[in-house]
């Protein structure tokens, strides 16, 4: 028997009873950055493959979704900061050992790339937006510049998209103190998730049956890869250190079992996988729109659970009987 009890008060907010410093803002940020990464990669690949006319939504309309997505992600990240007045310090230094520092700088390049890819497709994808922009000389210059150099930007976009998607997974895997997320497989898992999210957005947004079919195949592949990587991640944790084994037990009989399997794995991974398999076998039906919607839901839930369970898992678990409400009674 081993029991460790706090005999003095320790009720540090967002640390006790377990670490909860990263909330919905970080979860939403990682989800939206993943979507942006996927949008960046797909748009870039379509441009590099010279298939803009064949896959018009991906080439011309998806980048704006990515741009809005990254804008929201940055907003949520800013909202998470508890000392916002010095937020600019992220760009005052580069700390090579800090994954978040890498992310802060890389995201600026990602924003530039997705902005340029948005501009290159604005005239044909969103003529209603391009028109007002072209009333200004600088707007016309920007559109012309983006269209002229779109292949070069696309090359950069593929690389940046992969790196930034990896970054979202590496954020968790770099934290050894949070065993559940501390797996090297987090990076490719989050990349596959980002690709699946962007593919789902294309399937929902496009009016082209050919484009929808292509991204159905991509979604199926990405989802299958996600399932495989998730299984391998759980297996590696189950064969890891004591704290990793304890962390994975939270989803195998522990407090997060129901949430993990009934609200994530089944609806967010397996159901869309089955639906896409049926679609690829030729079945067509209106209700199949549920698949990309559930894929997007599953991508968000993946980040929710990795962040939440990752923070709950840890090396120290003291029995803490202190009731913070007592402090209010004393005041």
């Amino acid at each position, binding site marked *: 028997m081993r029991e460790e009890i706090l005999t003095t008060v320790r009720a540090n907010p967002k640390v006790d009873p377990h670490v909860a*410093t990263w909330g919905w803002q970080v979860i939403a940020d990682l989800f939206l950055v993943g979507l942006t990464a996927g949008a960046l990669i797909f748009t870039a690949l379509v441009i590099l493959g010279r298939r803009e006319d064949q896959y018009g939504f991906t080439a011309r309309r998806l980048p704006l979704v990515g741009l809005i997505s990254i804008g929201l992600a940055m907003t949520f990240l800013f909202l998470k900061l*508890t000392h916002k007045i010095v937020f600019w310090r992220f760009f005052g230094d580069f700390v090579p*050992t800090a994954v978040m520092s890498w992310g802060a700088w890389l995201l600026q390049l990602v924003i530039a790339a997705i902005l340029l890819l948005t501009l290159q497709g604005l005239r044909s994808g969103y003529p209603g937006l391009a028109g007002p922009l072209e009333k200004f000389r600088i707007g016309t210059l920007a559109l012309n510049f983006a269209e002229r150099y779109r292949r070069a930007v696309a090359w950069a976009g593929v690389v940046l998209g992969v790196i930034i998607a990896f970054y979202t997974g590496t954020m968790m895997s770099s934290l050894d*103190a949070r065993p559940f997320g501390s797996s090297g497989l987090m990076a490719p898992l989050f990349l596959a998730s980002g690709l699946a999210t962007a593919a789902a957005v294309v399937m929902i947004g496009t009016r082209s049956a050919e484009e929808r079919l292509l991204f159905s195949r991509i979604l199926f592949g990405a989802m299958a890869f996600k399932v495989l990587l998730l299984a391998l991640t759980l297996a590696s944790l189950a064969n890891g250190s004591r704290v990793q084994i304890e962390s994975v037990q939270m989803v195998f009989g522990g407090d997060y079992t129901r949430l993990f399997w009934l609200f994530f794995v089944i609806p967010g991974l397996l159901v869309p996988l089955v639906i896409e398999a049926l679609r690829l076998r030729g079945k067509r039906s209106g209700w199949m729109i549920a698949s990309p919607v559930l894929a997007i839901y599953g991508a968000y839930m993946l980040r929710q659970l990795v962040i939440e369970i990752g923070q709950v898992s840890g090396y120290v678990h003291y029995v803490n009987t202190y009731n913070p409400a007592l402090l209010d009674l004393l005041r």
Partner: protein
Amino acid sequence: MIRYAMVIDTKLCIGCGDCVVACKTENKVPAGLNRDWVVEATTGTYPDLKTEFRSERCNHCTKPTCLYACPTGATYRWAGTNIVLVDPDKCTGCGACIAACPYDARFVMPEGYVSKCTFCHHRVDKGLDPACVSSCPTRCMHFGVLNDPNSKVSKLLASRPHKALLTETGNEPQVYYLI
């Protein structure tokens, strides 16, 4: 690097909590927040039980994952020592260090920046011991420079069995417990 260490004799610690009160008083830690705490650890099977009191805090590791995780350089080592501090003017409150610390030693101040035990570096700078060490009624807490083989802490560690917490993380904590 000058390596400061704290050595706590678990055979003498009675879990009175004076160290916790001294820390809050010395460092004006806001109500509801704690830089240090006392843990009562019971092991064994009844009736063969052992109890150990541990006064815990930031371990001022020589390989601090919190410092490595900080994206703004707000977490830094003080004056060429292993004492890890946080610069409030650089800390954005992103929480990376809180997530990176295996000891859950950090917390967010009401002003928004992260704080934790500082080994009372302002007292160390004047040649004094941290407040918790000075206040201990059983004198079970010791503080000093481990680089000096003649320091009290070096001699204690050389002469008594001891342990540190969570050494498997690779952080190399510098708070030791005599067992």
